C-alpha cells in the first residue's frame, strides 16, 4: 500500500468558499477584543495586570470556601461571606479592572485608526458595537459573575452533604447569574462609554475613575448633610451592589446601615445610566467615518 501524497498550492487564489452568518463575525470581534484586553498573544508583561486582578477577584471566594475545610466547626461559606458581601469586597477590584481593561476596547482602535478598515469592508458600526459589548460583558463577568459562581459551587462541594446543598443552594443559580450579569453590564456600560469619548486611553481611565471615585464621596457627603438616604443612589460605584442586594439570598448589602435608598430608585439609576451609555455609543458610532 502506498501513502497518498497531496500537493497544495500556497499561491494567492480567489476565494469562493462559504461565508458564515454575520453573528459569527460579531462573536469573532468579541473573542478577539477579549483576548487583546487580557494580553493574550502579546508580551508576558501585558498579561500581568489583568490576570493579577482576576486572581485577586477570586481569592475572597476561594478563601471563604476553604475555611470550612481547614477548621472544624467553622461556619458554612455562605454564612461567612454572603453573595452581597462578596460583591462589596470585590468592588475596588472590579473598579480597577473595569478602568484598566474596558476603555482600551475602543480607544486603541480609534487611536490606530482601524475603524475605517472595519466599517468599509468588514462590518457595520452596529455589529462592531455588539462585538465590543459582548467582549466587555465577558471581561467583567470574570471579576463579578465568576467569583460568585466559585462561591456557590464551592459552598455546595465543601458542605457535609453536597447533594442536599445542591438541592438547597442550587435554586439560587439563576439569581447569582442574574446578579453577576447586572454588575457586569453596569461596569461594561460605564467603561465603554468612557472609551467611546476619547482615543486616549489615559483620559478614558481618568474619566471613569473620576466618576466611580468622586460620586461615592459626593453622594455620601450630601446624604449626611441633608439626611436623605436616597441621595446615596447617586454613588455610581455601588449601584449594581445595591440593585442586586434583594436578588441574592443571605444578608444583603447596607442591611446594617442607618439608611439606604429605595430599590426602585436604585434600579431607576441603573436603567437611566445604561440608557445614557447606549445613547452615547450609538451617537458616537452611527457615522461610519468615525475613524
Amino acid at each position, binding site marked *: 500500500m502506498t501513502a497518498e501524497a497531496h500537493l497544495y498550492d500556497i499561491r494567492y*487564489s480567489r476565494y469562493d468558499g462559504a461565508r458564515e452568518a454575520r453573528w*459569527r463575525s460579531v462573536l*469573532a470581534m468579541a473573542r478577539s477584543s477579549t483576548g487583546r484586553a487580557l494580553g493574550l498573544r502579546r508580551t508576558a508583561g501585558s498579561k500581568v495586570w489583568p490576570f493579577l486582578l482576576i486572581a485577586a477577584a477570586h481569592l475572597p471566594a476561594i478563601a471563604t470556601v476553604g475555611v470550612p475545610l481547614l477548621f472544624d466547626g467553622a461556619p458554612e461559606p455562605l454564612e461567612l461571606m454572603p453573595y452581597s458581601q462578596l460583591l462589596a469586597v470585590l468592588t475596588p477590584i472590579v473598579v480597577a479592572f473595569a478602568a484598566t481593561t474596558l476603555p482600551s476596547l475602543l480607544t486603541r*482602535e480609534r487611536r490606530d485608526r482601524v475603524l475605517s*478598515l472595519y466599517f468599509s469592508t468588514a*462590518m457595520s458600526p452596529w455589529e462592531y458595537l455588539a462585538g465590543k459589548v459582548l467582549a466587555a460583558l465577558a471581561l467583567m463577568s470574570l471579576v463579578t459573575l465568576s467569583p460568585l459562581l466559585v462561591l456557590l459551587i464551592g459552598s455546595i462541594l465543601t458542605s457535609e452533604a453536597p447533594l442536599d446543598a445542591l438541592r438547597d443552594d442550587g435554586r439560587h443559580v439563576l439569581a447569582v447569574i442574574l446578579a453577576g450579569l447586572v454588575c457586569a453590564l453596569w461596569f461594561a456600560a460605564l467603561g465603554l462609554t468612557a472609551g467611546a469619548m476619547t482615543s486616549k486611553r489615559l483620559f478614558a481611565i481618568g474619566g471613569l475613575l473620576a466618576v466611580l471615585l468622586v460620586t461615592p464621596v459626593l453622594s455620601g457627603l450630601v446624604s449626611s448633610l441633608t439626611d436623605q438616604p436616597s441621595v446615596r443612589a447617586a454613588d455610581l460605584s455601588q449601584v449594581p451592589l445595591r440593585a442586586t442586594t434583594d436578588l441574592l439570598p443571605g444578608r444583603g448589602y447596607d442591611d446594617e446601615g442607618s439608611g439606604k435608598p429605595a430599590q426602585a430608585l436604585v434600579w431607576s439609576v441603573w436603567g437611566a445610566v445604561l440608557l445614557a451609555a447606549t445613547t452615547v455609543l450609538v451617537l458616537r458610532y452611527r457615522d461610519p467615518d468615525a475613524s
Partner: protein
Amino acid sequence: MSLSDGYGRPMTAALACDGLVKTFGAVRALDRVTVSVAAPATGLLGANGAGKSTLMKVALGLLTPDEGEVRVLGLTDRTQIRARVGYMPEHSCLPTDMSAQDLCIHLARLRGLPRRDALRRASEVLFAVGLEEERHRLIDTYSLGMRQRAKLAQALVHGPDLVVLDEPTSGLDPAGRTEMLEILRHLSRDLGIQVLLSSHVLEDIERTCDEVVVLASGRVSAQQAVSARVSTGPVTLQVTGDAAAFAGLLQEHGITAQLVAGRILLPSAGPRELAAVRDLAASSGTGLSSMVDAANALEDAVVGAMA
C-alpha cells in the same frame, strides 16, 4: 467588446457614480461626479484635494453623499459590497499590537470566512505580498514598506472582486515603490481582481492601470485609456560633435531633422527613424548624449485636465 476577469468571468463596472455631490462645510469635495469605471485597473488621478479620497470613501460607504447615487460592482447594499471589496487606506490604519498574520486572520473572520479558511488565506496573501518571513512580528516593529504590504494583504485576504487602494505607494522608497507597483499590476493582470487606485503620480498609474480618471476640484475632468503607446515623435537629440553635420546626414537619408538651439529635433520618429539614427551615429562616429521623447500624450492630456 465585453470585459472579463482573469478567470473569464464578465467584469461589471467596479464603480458607477451618478451626480455625486459631497460637501464639507463650504468646501464642495465632489461636484456632480458622474463616472463609470469598468477597466481591470483604473487610476484616480488628481492633485491633493481634488476629491480622490472622498470619492473612494463615498464608494466604500464611509461617507454619505449629499446627492447622487453610487454603485459598487453593480450593488448598493452595504453588506454585499463589504463582502466583495477590499480597501487599503492611505493613512496608517493597522493595530500596532498585532502581527500581520493575526491581523489578516482577524479581518478575514470579521468578513465571514470560517476559521480554517481564514488561516489558509492569511498565509496565502502574506506570501503573495512578500511578508511570509515577517508575518509573526508585531506590526509596531515593521518598516513603512512592510506596513504598506500588510495593509494590502488585509485588503486581499477575503478574496475581493474589487480592491480600492488609496495612495498605495505613499511614503515608499524607490525600490519599495517599484515592488508595490509590480504587486498591484499582478492583481488585475494575473489574479483577475479589479483595482481602483488613487495617486497623484502619473507614472504609478501608467505602470499599473488600464484607464485613468482625472479629478480636478471635485469634478471628473478626463477619462481615458492608458494604452501601450508606440512612440512616433517628436524626439529631441543631443549629440557630441557637429550637430549641424549630423542633422544634414539624417536629411540625406530621408529623415526630417531640424536644428533648434544646438539640438536636433525629429518631428516624426517611429521605430524605423530611430534605428536609422542609431546606425548613422555609429557609422559616422557621432556620440548620442541624449535622446528625449518630446511628447507624452497621456501626460499632456492629464496636465491639461488638471489645469
